[in-house]
Each structure stands twice: as structure tokens, then as C-alpha cells.
């Protein structure tokens, strides 16, 4: 009996339009946000904001935040939070600084060693959350303070009383790995483009933008890899499943524990990557590095369509979320608007994103 009645298309279902389909993509809100913010600044900011150097100007902080935000987004999709990312940036910065300055290690040893320590801390975070069943919010909040404090104490030990560790640039200046983590890429191409007159140059013929800052390349590459992993690999499916319903996932054979711990390790490693890039760039590290970045990363992830409850979101959304962030932070200085509006804007953006996500979730699940 059911053969006939069910196989017929249900007459109560309306055909879905293209717009409705698009609405169901988690990153749509962030993309719309980028468009809206761009339009806003096209009207209010000076023209220099959207020149090549202006774009590099806001993309650099966007990239640094974005690397954290994509990690945070993947963890959020997996159903957990990590509030210790910002402190982890400071702590990894300290470890890295101490390795290269105090111990004089070459980067080829210092970088993997720093990542290993960060990964171990990420795994510790994850293990405590999973073993105790406590909310990751509270466990990582504890690590927010522990790691921030440890960075401060560690810096004093490493420097003999100061909270800033200098001399990183001198220590790594001629290392063959340095160009991968700092400076600009494609300088040859940019010089050539300037020579051809295709991009802005100084009167000496040197391009105004010497190349693409490497963090932007890391950011773009990471966004692509993360999106690929989420949407096209079994592991991506496991991440969505672990965040959507832990029980259902593990009953279906998803190694939930392993997935979640890996994600905690991933966020710790993202923080370390940002720490290494910014420490080499600044030539020093201090205890305030990465301050408040955990919240900014989570906000960017939420603007990018991640649900706070897990199981839904996208890496490309976090990518756009971070770009919105960079545009607003830097963009306001191109306008006549008081820059202190930044936080007001941020809060409003977050609220709008959460409301929008909630609406989308109801559409997707057909809740009423």
C-alpha cells in the first residue's frame, strides 16, 4: 500500500527556489555581511581603503584572526568551545621566543617543538572535557587564565624580570624557514607588476605593496583545506556528527572522542601558527599577545554561520567573518567616524548573526 501513496511527490511540499536553497548555506550570512560592510565603506571611507595597499592593510589582521576563527569554527561545529585560544597565542609565543632566543634553536627545531607543546596542551584541554563531561566552556575558561598567567611568569623567568622577550628577529633573521612564516610573498611578481605600471609604485619604481603578507596566504590556504575537510572527507562528516549529536554519532561508529580531541589540538595549533607569525613579525613577544582573541575568533565563527550548539557551520563562513572583522577594525580609520564605535558595531553584528543563524537553523530542520 505504501508503495503507491508514498512514492508520489507530496502535494503539500512547495518547490524550493534557488534563493531558498542558497538561504540554507551556513556561510550566506557572512557573505552578505562582507557585501554590506564593503558597500558601507565604499560610501564612507576614503578611496585609499580599496586600493591594493588598503586591502593588504585590512587583510593582514583579518588573516591573523581568521586562522584562529577557522580553528574555532571547526571546534564549534564539533560541538565544543575553546576560550583558551587567545592565551594560547601568548603562551606559544613565549615558548617559541624562549626556544629561539634563550636556547638559540634553529627554526626547523623550534617550530615543530612549539607545535608539539601546544598540541599537548590542546589534547589536555580536550581530554579533561571528555573525561569529566564538564562543559568545554568552563574547562577552557580555566586554561584562559592558567595560560595567560603562565605566559607572564614564564616571560619573567626567561628575561629575568621583564614581560617582553626581545631579539627574536635577530635570532631568526637569516634562517631559511623565516620567509615561510614572515614577510611578503611574491615580491618578484609585485616588482615586475610595478615595473609594468600595473600596480601603484613609488617614484623610485619600487611597488607600494612589496608582496602579499604570508599570513594572508596561510589564511586562504587554511580556509580552503578546512572547507575541503569539512565537506568532502569522512572526517568532516564525523565533525558534523560529533557536534550534532554525540550519542547518535558514537552509536553509528564515529570515533567522537578522537574527533573532539583532534579539534582541540587543531585550535591550539592555529593559535601557535598565529603566535609564530606575529612574534617573528614583531621581533618580540609579550604577555598580552592574543588578548581577547578567543572572543573575536568565536564571534567571527558565529558571524560565519556556526551554531553555538554545534553541528552546523562552515569554515568559509569563518573566513568571511574574519574579513568583516578586519574591514571594520581598520576601515573605521579611513572614515571620519570615531573609531571607538568599533565595539558597538561588533556587538550589533554578533547579535544580528545569532538571530539570523537561529532563523536559518529553523529553516533547515523544518522546526516551527
Amino acid at each position: 500500500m505504501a508503495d503507491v501513496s508514498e512514492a508520489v511527490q507530496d502535494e503539500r511540499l512547495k518547490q524550493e527556489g534557488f534563493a531558498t536553497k542558497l538561504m540554507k548555506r551556513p556561510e550566506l550570512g557572512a557573505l552578505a555581511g562582507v557585501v554590506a560592510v564593503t558597500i558601507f565603506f565604499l560610501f564612507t571611507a576614503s578611496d585609499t581603503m580599496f586600493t591594493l595597499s588598503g586591502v593588504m592593510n585590512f587583510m593582514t589582521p583579518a588573516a591573523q584572526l581568521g586562522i584562529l576563527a577557522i580553528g574555532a569554527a571547526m571546534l564549534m561545529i564539533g560541538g565544543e568551545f575553546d576560550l583558551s585560544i587567545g592565551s594560547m597565542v601568548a603562551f606559544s609565543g613565549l615558548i617559541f621566543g624562549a626556544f629561539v632566543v634563550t636556547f638559540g634553536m634553529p627554526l626547523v627545531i623550534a617550530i615543530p617543538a612549539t607545535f608539539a607543546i601546544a598540541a599537548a596542551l590542546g589534547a589536555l584541554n580536550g581530554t579533561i572535557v571528555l573525561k569529566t563531561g564538564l562543559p568545554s566552556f568552563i574547562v577552557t575558561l580555566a586554561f584562559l587564565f592558567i595560560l595567560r598567567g603562565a605566559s607572564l611568569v614564564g616571560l619573567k623567568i626567561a628575561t629575568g624580570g621583564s614581560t617582553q622577550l626581545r631579539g627574536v628577529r635577530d635570532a631568526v633573521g637569516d634562517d631559511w624557514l623565516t620567509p615561510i612564516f614572515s614577510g611578503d610573498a611574491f615580491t618578484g611578481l609585485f616588482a615586475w607588476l610595478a615595473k609594468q605600471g600595473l600596480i601603484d609604485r613609488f617614484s623610485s619604481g619600487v611597488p607600494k605593496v612589496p608582496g602579499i603578507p604570508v599570513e594572508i596566504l596561510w589564511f586562504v590556504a587554511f580556509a580552503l583545506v578546512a572547507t575541503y575537510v569539512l565537506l568532502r572527507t569522512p572526517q568532516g562528516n564525523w565533525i558534523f556528527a560529533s557536534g550534532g549529536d554525540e550519542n547518535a554519532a558514537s552509536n553509528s561508529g564515529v570515533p567522537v572522542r578522537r574527533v573532539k580531541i583532534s579539534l582541540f589540538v587543531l585550535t591550539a595549533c592555529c593559535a601557535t601558527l598565529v603566535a609564530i607569525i606575529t612574534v617573528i613579525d614583531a621581533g618580540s613577544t609579550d604577555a598580552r599577545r592574543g588578548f581577547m582573541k578567543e572572543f573575536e575568533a568565536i564571534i567571527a565563527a558565529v558571524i560565519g554561520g556556526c551554531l553555538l550548539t554545534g553541528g552546523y557551520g562552515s569554515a568559509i563562513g569563518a573566513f568571511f567573518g574574519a574579513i568583516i572583522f578586519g574591514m571594520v577594525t581598520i576601515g573605521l580609520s579611513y572614515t571620519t567616524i570615531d573609531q571607538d564605535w568599533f565595539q558597538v558595531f561588533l556587538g550589533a553584528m554578533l547579535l544580528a548573526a545569532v538571530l539570523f543563524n537561529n532563523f536559518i537553523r529553523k529553516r533547515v530542520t523544518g522546526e516551527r
Partner: protein
Amino acid sequence: MAGDTTFHHGAPKAGTAPIVQMRNIEKHFGNIIALAGVSFDVLAGECHCLLGDNGAGKSTFIKTMSGVHKPTKGEIFLNGKPMAFSSPRDAMEAGIATVFQDLAMIPLMSVTRNFFMGREPTKGKWLFKRMDIDKANSATMEAMREMGIKLRSPDQAVGTLSGGERQTVAIARAVYFGAKVLILDEPTSALGVRQTSNVLATIDRVRKQGVGIVFITHNVRHAMAVGDRFTVLNRGKTLGTAKRGDITGNELQDMMAGGQEMASLEGSLGGTV
């Protein structure tokens, strides 16, 4: 009630050996005896209904059969050989699949992603090893069509399906992954009339493919509609197994409720329960 209904199309062939046989299973949790001697078996292509009221030990029994619990006493035979499952995974690999009430479905994920959750088909090697989305999509659509459900698209979120359709996705998934015995934990308990009949039709369809079904319910009407054999569980014990036609719905109802108390209750309710 005992007569043939829409969902019943003949008993399994006689003389087949049971796929799973459980003998005198006992399960104790500390000083609580949850199961006190349960015997049960499933043949290929039959629907064996396990009836019992709340607290009769149905859940404990299912969990023992699906490898979540180890029995304190008693034996389990799979195709005549003694078996001891140490995890649900073991049982699954041996062909015993369980569809629990929560269905192990994630509403925010698409039907395909749910269907292949934890067992994703892949293509490519090493770094390029990726999920074979096309294959997963077409396999899902095909499996659902066989169960009589036409999906709008394999990307449709499970949350948009009705309760009966979700149940069917879960059953189709178990069958697709080679279940020989399918344990259904109260599949009709939260469903409306029409959706219930759809699920019962699905059970019949799966049975015809030669899968042995353990249908757990406390609804005698649903059991009588589709069951080949009926076993009643009361206070941790099985009260024997009856074949279709040898027992009436009222008798089953009485056995489930433990006889006497029910009789007095029914008196006050005018025999409508």
C-alpha cells in the same frame, strides 16, 4: 485481531535454523535483577515481536542482544555458534543491527550524511582520500526508494523528515549495511496512525528480504498487525512464545500486564484498554 492483516504475508519457511538464539539470559545490576531468565530466538525472514510493559526488561534485553551489556548468565548463539559480543560494534559486524528510539540520526545533517555516518564511502588515496559524495547520494536515494520514500534530494536535512520517514531511513541504513537481524526498539511508539502503518509496511518489506526482525513494542495492535511470533516479557522473564494464530490480542495484553491486576482495571474502564 488474530486474522491476517494488510501487513502479513505468510510465515517464514518451516525448518530454518534461528540466526540468533538466546538461552536463559540473566542480567544483574548490583542487587537488581533486570533479566531473570530470558529465552528468545529469531529466524531469517520473520518478525518476532517482543512485548512487555514499561519496566519489564525490554531495554536491558535489547542492549544485551546488541552488545551494549554482557549477560550475567546465559548463552547467545549466532548461527548455532556461541558468541560473546564485547561491544555494539562487534554485534553490528556480526549482522545484528539495532535501531534505538533516538534513531542515531542528526536533524541538522542531510539524509546522505546521516545514512553513511561513521561508514562513509571513500575514493582516492592518502591525502586525496575523500568521501565519495556521488556514490553516497545515489545509494541513499536508491535505498530510500526501495523503502517507498521519495526524497526531494539527498541533501535534505533529516530534521525536515517526518517521524515515520526518519524511522524508515534508520531501517534502510541498517539493511543497506548488511543487517541479518534488525532490532527495532519501539519504532511506532511516537507515531501517528498513518506513519505507523508506513513503518509496519517497511518492516514487512525488510522481512521479505530475509532479514530477521525483532520488533519491540508495548502496543499489541501493532504487534498483531505484523508479527509472526510473539514473546511476552514480564518482570524480567519470558512467559513463552506463541505463533501467529495461536494467540489473541487480548491474551497478549493480559500476559503483558500480568493478568489479575489488569482484569480489575479493565472492569472499571469497561474493557476498552
